[in-house]
């Protein structure tokens, strides 16, 4: 006779477990979910979102012909329509011919040197960030889809090891804030899961655009750690791992982030 009586309780318990916040928090969530309402509105409004200035600037640079005569648009179309959004959503990718992990910024710099035959823009240069913002924005709405098997599997493991390593005088790892204390407040700011789907993004804190790599650099500096050089292996490994955590989230470039 106890069976039928226990059944509703057991069902209730299962429902309660499924609705449990701790369980829900382990699902990948965009940084958008942790923003204040005003900041969300700012991101959603093309005229309010300062990231669209970078998109416009990026498009202008995309079309600008260098002395060599070949612009990005010469190959990829005036609107970049010949770029495949699904392939953009795969970045960072593994490319053996380029020696391993290739981020979107690396690909653009490579194109500048090899195809347009101009000097590549320096890493973190506002013009390079604008180009990356314009190109990534072409894939807005696509789900992040970083390769996690094959050659990427072992590289992402190395990236994860860096993610869990403490750095600097403040002695925290990425995981401390973005895994253990997600949803809590640091100086009144809500801590997100540190996902990459919104990047390049407009940062309220600096008032400038940042791609994921620059954001990692800013985090490490905040930890009073020596940041990785933008073309270093560590930078690529950590960036690729963070973007792979964001797999399945919709690309929001240009997002607005704290």
């Amino acid at each position, binding site marked *: 006779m106890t069976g039928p009586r226990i059944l509703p309780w057991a069902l209730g318990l299962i429902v309660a477990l499924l609705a449990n916040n701790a369980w829900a928090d382990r699902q990948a969530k965009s940084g958008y979910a942790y923003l*204040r309402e*005003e900041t969300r509105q*700012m991101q959603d409004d093309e005229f309010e979102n300062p990231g669209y200035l970078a998109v416009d600037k990026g498009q202008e640079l995309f079309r600008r012909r260098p002395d060599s005569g070949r612009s990005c648009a010469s190959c990829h179309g005036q609107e970049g329509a010949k770029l495949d959004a699904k392939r953009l959503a795969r970045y960072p990718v593994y490319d053996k011919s380029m020696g391993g992990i290739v981020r979107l910024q690396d690909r653009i710099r490579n194109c500048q040197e090899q195809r347009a035959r101009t000097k590549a823009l320096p890493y973190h240069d506002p013009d390079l960030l604008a180009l990356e913002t314009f190109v990534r924005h072409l894939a807005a709405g696509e789900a992040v889809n970083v390769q996690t098997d094959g050659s990427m599997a072992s590289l992402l493991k190395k990236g994860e090891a860096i993610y869990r*390593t*403490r*750095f*600097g*005088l*403040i*002695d*925290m790892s990425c995981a*401390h*804030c973005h895994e*253990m*204390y997600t949803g*809590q*407040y*640091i*100086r*009144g*700011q809500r*801590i997100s899961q540190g996902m990459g789907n919104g990047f390049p993004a407009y*940062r*309220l*804190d*600096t*008032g400038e655009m940042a791609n994921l790599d620059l954001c990692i650099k*800013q*985090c490490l*500096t*905040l930890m*009073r*750690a*020596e*940041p990785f050089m933008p073309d270093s292996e560590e930078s690529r490994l950590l960036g690729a791992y963070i973007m792979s955590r964001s797999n399945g989230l919709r690309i929001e470039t240009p997002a607005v982030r*704290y």
Partner: protein
Amino acid sequence: MKGAGILLVFLLTPMTGMASDSAAVTPAEAYCKWKMVDYGVPEPLCGLQGDAGRGRRIVLDSGQGNCLACHRLPVDGVEGYGTIGPPLAGVASRLTRAQLRLRVVDARHLNPYSIMPGYYPDLALINRPAVKYRGRAFLPAQAVEDVIAYLATLK
């Protein structure tokens, strides 16, 4: 943060100390070794005497102790505090000075996974410090003792 006006002010005056590290670098000083006894550090660092008034300022200063980044403190007029660590009101009723000191110098002796930064840890444990901070603890020994003196008043 309500209303566009406040948002604008917020945009024009970003909170300092988040993405940029604007804190003044204190000169390097000789490191004093400390000893853990019964999960506390009974001896003051370098035998220094702390000052609660100075300690309070260090605790509130985002470029120094920055305790409010993670903890709530019984101080009026603070909005942007953190919820990561336990609130510190009454902490001196729960912990002795020696216990407070261990938590401030290096809480990892109590919990190896602790997010709490060591303010005066064994410097060899600091991984990849920024060049300008090399050879320094998060806070100088005197500042740590000032902070302990202030925390000890939170009964």
